[in-house]
């Protein structure tokens, strides 16, 4: 009896997701047609690539110490500003004297920065920072957002009004500015970056989850559960929570990319992850003064950001289409 309608919905989704993943060219159902019309099917094969990339990034994050060829923080001034391996040494004239610029070597595949630190190693260790920050932020923000969202949607009335007002307020702040101010109040650190970013993301999640919970609450199985004498807590945990899960998964996946960009932006401005920790944003900003001579310092970590965000967005789109075609406005 318990939760029949919701369960059916979930099973349906699971069945659909399963049937798509094991047989790529399947018969299109009317639902798939509808999706195709609004979203242009291109996603049947695609998740394999982003999933592989995400797996690779997580692998890099965990085994950064073993994978990266050099210590990302150790400077070695004799190697300063070595270009990537394919760049050859050039003769330039400085103050009437001919000098040969250093040539790239396989020792530093993507070159080095002003302090002679290996860019590739810094990017690899930057992956660890990006993965950890987005992981922690989404864990915190999702936990708070889902809890408050479910409570808000389920109870309605006063609690709902208060929570939603809070959401409004948090979403009304200019996030970057507040984050900048915060980082100056409390010295920039890994922990503070996570706190600041989470403070904005819980609100987005809470708003979405509330809307979903509101709709679920009105369904028959919730009424039946209540008639059967289930407590509010039990209804929320056992009946509403499982049904908002697909929404939460979609929101969270789609948020990863924006969290990565947010962290990188803060670090770029010097108010995020403190240097010399190789956050991607930090490395990009370190190359800013060397754009004339050493373009590789800023270019490659930025590419890492784009690849990571692109991958997560593609994956998020895919999860959204698979789990809930009704949410395509997100």
């Amino acid at each position, binding site marked *: 009896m318990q939760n029949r309608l919701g369960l059916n919905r979930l099973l349906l989704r699971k069945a659909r997701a399963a049937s798509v993943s094991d047989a790529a060219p399947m018969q299109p159902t009317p639902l798939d047609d509808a999706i195709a019309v*609004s979203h242009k099917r291109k996603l049947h094969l695609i998740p394999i690539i982003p999933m592989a990339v995400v797996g690779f990034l997580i692998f890099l994050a965990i085994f950064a110490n073993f994978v990266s060829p050099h210590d990302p923080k150790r400077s070695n001034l004799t190697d300063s500003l070595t270009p990537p391996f394919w760049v050859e040494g050039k003769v330039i004239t400085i103050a009437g004297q001919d000098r040969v610029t250093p040539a790239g070597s396989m020792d530093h595949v993507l070159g080095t920065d002003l302090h002679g630190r290996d860019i590739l190693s810094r990017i690899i260790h930057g992956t660890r920072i990006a993965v950890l920050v987005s992981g922690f932020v989404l864990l915190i923000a999702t936990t708070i957002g889902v809890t408050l969202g479910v409570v808000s949607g389920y109870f309605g009335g006063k609690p709902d009004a208060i929570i939603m007002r809070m959401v409004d307020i948090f979403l009304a702040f200019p996030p970057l500015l507040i984050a900048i101010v915060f980082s100056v109040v409390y010295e920039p650190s890994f922990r503070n970056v996570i706190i600041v970013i989470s403070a904005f993301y819980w609100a987005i999640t809470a708003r979405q989850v509330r809307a979903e919970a509101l709709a679920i609450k009105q369904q028959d199985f919730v009424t039946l559960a209540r008639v059967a004498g289930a407590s509010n807590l039990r209804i929320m945990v056992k009946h509403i929570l499982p049904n908002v899960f697909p929404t939460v998964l979609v929101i969270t996946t789609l948020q990863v990319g924006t969290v990565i960009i947010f962290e990188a*932006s803060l670090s770029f401005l010097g108010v995020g992850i403190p240097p010399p920790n190789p956050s991607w944003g930090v490395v990009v900003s370190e190359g800013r003064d060397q754009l004339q001579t050493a373009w590789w310092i800023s270019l490659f970590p930025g590419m890492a950001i784009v690849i990571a965000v692109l991958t997560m967005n593609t994956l998020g789109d895919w999860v959204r289409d698979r789990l809930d075609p009704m949410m395509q406005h997100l």
Partner: protein
Amino acid sequence: MSRYIIKRSIHAVITLFVVSIVVFMIVRLSGDPVLLLVPDEAPAEDYEEMRKLLRLDEHITVQYVIWMRQVLTGDLGESTTQRLPVATLIIERFPATLQLTALAFAFTLLIGLPIGVYAAAHRGGALDFLARGFAVFGQATPNFWMGIVFIMIFAVWLGWLPAAGREGGIKFLILPAVTIGWFPVAGVMRLTRSSMLEVLNSEYVKLARVKGVRESLVLWKHAFKNAALPVLTYSALIIVFMVRGSVIVETVFAWPGVGRLVLEAVYNRDFPIVQAVVLLFATFFITANLMVDITYAYLNPKIRYS
């Protein structure tokens, strides 16, 4: 409708009030501005006197009330490091930010709208594919890095445009404006495309086609006029997004606007400037949101009564 407007306006005011308190509190917690003004070797009396002068010795709620009363009368206080009225400083820097935002906004609409319409009309075509690819990349590329790549290509490598600064005409505006517009272009394009697709599917467009109306007329007169509505409301949010993003882009291009003013102020712990700018941006954002909500409610009665 008027009830809805009143309700939403009250919410907006409450939000603004809380924002102002939080801004005030955060900024107050960020360290002692007196220490920056008074030299280290100065006697304690000087320090106390400076505190009194800035009224930092009062209770924090009193400080808030004093500050709020001033803000409401248009007095945003005096910069603690530059000894000038904050309002003057903001007004001085504002045109630079406004220029940038205006050009970026024009760029966004001029590129985003036509491409979006074209992509919808020729669904599955090469440009549609390209436009969607562009949108996907636009959303994955951080502002600051885009700016740096533009500098690398157009300033360092090709030498066409200046890398930073503002003195000397429109040339200096192009790179920062395109950098700010990059992300919103992707958004406008996607929204125009999906909105156009929806409208093109409707009965009255089919009727117009059946009647033999020229395709370009169907596209621009019949369909676009209706499809443009969501894009227009969205553009209110774009402007907000741009003004907010100005902090980053102005830093990258050393553009002397409000965004850089506030970042410098944060580094110098110049409370009044930070408070004023954050409050200004928040007010701007809340007002824009309110207007968007009211427009939506006006267009869609369902929202009004929910």
